[in-house]
């Protein structure tokens, strides 16, 4: 995951390079390190280095890393001609390389030659069945063809081998959410929270999934995970604060007419509403009246 300072740094560098202020290599390295998807920029600034033999040779052995990076960016931008050129250079430098083989297979994939790409990937996997990138390409390829159940199948197989891959669990969770399979999605986020209990985002999404599932028990659980998110973010996460208000309101509706012990104490909602109001007053004053009436409608219902 990319932190806010890292993102600011990369944005600063990007506009610097865009405006001719130099630092292209630094920018490209950072994009690689943070695993960002800024293919149009990578293509533009990467090519400007590759097309300049002086700048290119100054990179030393990193030159080949750049060819690889630009090849992938070019495929993402549908500039298959450029991708092919980069791959050719790498083939010449590293004949028989598996890493270059991967790029060749990706080019087949970019051309939507699915059967041929699949063949190339499986032969690469035969040689090294623990190549995570190729396993992931298979998932992506199923997704690209609209075969979502296939993508789920490949991801589950992948997660049997690489259980500790958090991004893969997240991807699986997101796919389940997009299919409205919330029960299955909740399982993915439980895994993520167990593996990395201090990341607020997992608590938040898990709470969102539980709220979406609905029912008294899930609403109570959702409220706890929203509270954990607030705790972990020092009260700065607006989504979690809104989540508390929604949960308390929902619980109130479901327990209407029951005896007092089942009722929610309104304290948590009142506190969340106060923090929300303070936040809007400071950062979004024109929307404050909207917030106030939204909160009112949640209390009354």
């Amino acid at each position, binding site marked *: 995951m990319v932190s806010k300072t890292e993102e600011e740094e990369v944005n600063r560098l990007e506009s610097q390079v865009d405006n001719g202020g130099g630092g292209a290599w630094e920018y490209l390295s950072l994009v690689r390190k943070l695993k960002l*998807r800024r293919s149009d920029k990578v293509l533009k600034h990467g090519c400007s280095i590759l097309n300049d033999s002086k700048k290119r040779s100054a990179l030393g052995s990193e030159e080949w890393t750049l060819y690889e990076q630009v090849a992938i960016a070019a495929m993402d931008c549908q500039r298959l001609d450029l991708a092919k050129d980069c791959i050719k250079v790498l083939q010449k430098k590293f004949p028989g390389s598996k890493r270059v083989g991967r790029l060749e297979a990706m080019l087949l994939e970019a051309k939507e030659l699915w059967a041929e790409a699949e063949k190339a990937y499986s032969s690469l996997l035969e040689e090294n069945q623990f190549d995570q990138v190729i396993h992931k390409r298979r998932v992506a390829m199923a*997704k690209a063809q609209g075969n979502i159940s296939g993508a789920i199948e490949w991801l589950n197989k992948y997660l049997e081998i690489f259980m500790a891959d958090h991004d893969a669990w997240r991807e699986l969770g997101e796919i389940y959410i997009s*299919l409205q399979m919330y029960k299955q999605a909740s399982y993915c986020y439980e895994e993520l929270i167990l593996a990395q209990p201090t990341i607020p985002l997992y608590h938040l999404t898990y709470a*969102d999934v539980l*709220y979406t599932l609905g029912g008294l028990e899930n609403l109570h659980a959702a409220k706890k995970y929203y509270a954990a998110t607030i705790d972990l973010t020092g009260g700065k996460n607006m989504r979690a604060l809104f989540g508390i208000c929604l949960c308390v309101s929902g619980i109130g509706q479901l327990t209407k007419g029951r005896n007092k012990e089942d009722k929610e104490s309104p304290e948590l909602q009142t506190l969340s509403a106060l923090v929300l109001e303070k936040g809007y007053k400071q*950062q979004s004053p024109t*929307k404050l009246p909207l917030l106030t009436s939204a909160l009112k409608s949640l209390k009354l219902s």
Partner: protein
Amino acid sequence: MGGESRYEIHQNAYIKLVLHALNHRTSAVNAVLLGRSAATGTVEIVESVPLFHSQIGLLPPLEIALIMIEEYYSDRDLSIVGYFHANERYDDFELSTVARNIGDHITRYFPQAALLLLDNKKLEALPKGKNPSPVVQLYAKDTSTSWKLVGSDRSNQLSVKEPSANIVLLDYISSEKWKDIVDFDDHLDDISKDWLNLDVFK
């Protein structure tokens, strides 16, 4: 019922929808349409608010967004009259279940609600042709309970109010205006960002 309605969308509302989708090319996005029914039986779509670009299937952010948006526009005599959806994949022309469900929810309050799906093929062809028709597919519920694509033979059932809208849209695309579009996801991450997008058309 719904299948017989005509829809007219205002230029700015329409442009915001497309720019929002372009701002998040690698994910599904959605938006809500605001307007009113005119005396002639036409549904007038006056405004749109971009909603989300991540995890569209989750309820809490949607509920918050709808409460606030309804609250804001009720003072301006506009209510929610439809829903816009753009799929994650370029060549995916299926109406997802999430889109259907949100659409269903809206029809409970506004039976003639329009459901618009971004048509990437039309969007791609935009610079080549002079077609003034909007780059979306229109779905509506007829007397049955399911969403039906309103066929191209009756394509005039959805029109943009200003005939030059696509030319203006192209201009906005080439000047990369899509970067400035703020949706409700952005607002929830940083509440100082305004989902009304008042500055986009300045």
